[in-house]
């Protein structure tokens, strides 16, 4: 479904992604971890073309992401994205945040979009906040709205870029619960996160990155108990012993 083939990416002279080969199949939940600056977020952002790759090929559903002929807006309808800092639209209510793209991009009627939006708000457990503004919500609630906003486009793929890193510890659980539900329902998910509990419970595969390379790909149980790479061992010992 998502195929990286010898993908390289430079920011000026900085070589962020080095010869990435990675295939993510439909329904798979892939957790990407690694030290900061290892290129995990960049990897994720290439999938929906928020970043452009420098060379190699990257396809989503066999459509080349970086081809000039590809209608990127059409491709993006099928890929939801959740950001570390939520990025809800502050001038719009929760409901308006969610119905905007379905109405403007998919051409749904307002009534239809609202109905769908409410369904997803219920799913993420904050239907009662539909008419609030984002600034009136806690971080955890905002992130759940952001997830609902992504889901409202009925995408086949959801990307999560450190979705819990900006949250108070108490609110991490509520966001992870929503993500776990999605994973169990068969959503294809690529998640950049350090949440080990989440990774162990729902990830099909862990991708460990360092300095722009994918160093290790393995099942969560194998990875956490017995990482093959030295760098991965060091990384795990550091995040476990703080």
């Amino acid at each position: 479904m998502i195929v990286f083939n010898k993908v390289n990416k430079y920011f000026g002279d900085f070589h962020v992604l080095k010869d990435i080969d990675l295939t993510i199949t439909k329904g798979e939940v892939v957790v990407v971890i690694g030290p900061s600056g290892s290129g995990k977020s960049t990897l994720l952002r290439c999938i929906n073309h928020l970043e452009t790759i420098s060379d190699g090929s990257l396809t989503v559903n066999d459509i080349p992401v970086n081809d000039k002929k590809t209608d990127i807006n059409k491709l993006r309808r099928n890929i939801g994205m959740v950001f570390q800092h939520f990025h809800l639209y502050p001038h719009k209510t929760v409901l308006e945040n969610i119905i905007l793209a379905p109405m403007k991009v998919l051409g749904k009627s307002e009534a239809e979009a609202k109905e769908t939006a409410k369904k997803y708000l219920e799913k993420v457990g904050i239907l009662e906040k539909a008419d609030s503004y984002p600034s009136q919500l806690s971080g955890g609630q905002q992130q759940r709205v952001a997830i609902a906003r992504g889901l409202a486009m009925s995408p086949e793929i959801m990307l999560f870029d450190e979705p819990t890193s900006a949250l108070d510890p108490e609110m991490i659980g509520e966001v992870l619960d929503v993500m776990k539900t999605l994973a169990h329902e068969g959503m294809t998910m690529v998640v950049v996160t350090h949440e080990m509990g989440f990774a162990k419970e729902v990830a099909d595969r862990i991708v460990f990155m360092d300095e722009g390379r994918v160093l290790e790909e393995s099942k969560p149980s194998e990875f956490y108990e017995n990482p093959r790479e030295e760098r991965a061992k060091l990384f795990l010992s550091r995040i476990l012993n703080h």
Partner: protein
Amino acid sequence: MDFARVWAYSDMIIEGLQVTMLASVIALLASLFFGTLVAVMRISPFKSLNWLGSAYVEFFRNIPLLLIILSVFFIFTPKGWIAGTIGLTIYTTAFIAEAIRAGIQSIPKGQMEAARSTGLTYGQAMILIILPQAIKVVIPPLGNQFLNLVKNSSLLAMVAGGDLMYQADLISSITFKTMDTYVFIAGFYLILTIPLSFLVKYLEKRFALSG
């Protein structure tokens, strides 16, 4: 000060006031529209549009307004108030474009990314997400530009634009009460600009409240 002597020409003053108001309102709306357009050009992903926008701003904000008005007057139309209003629009557009560009760039990049990643086009994201947020930031500097615009409209007098300043010139040359006339006319400019100042303050407060 003999204001009664000046007020004897009240019909001219009222007419001038109307022309000044009309020219200001037209130039204000037009430069808001074109200024937004130029601002969006300057930050768009297209290099040629960036260049065009920058060239416009740097050229027109760095030459005297009077020169622009005279050029429009001699090249395009002998109607003074039309030439003046067009000149004002061309000039003010450059300043408004800069204010709006700064406002747009003050909105976190994540807003555009979030909007684009749901499949909205660049234009839709700009109009639906970025500009409505930028407008709050932009109100105070826009207010400044609008006040300047009203005062700058006095240059219409140079091309016989029939505005307040033009009428003041006429009245002072008829009455020879030069100081009296100009002081009296200054009062009329204040009648226009002070409410505008308060309007800007009011809008600033109102937009600050709405999330």
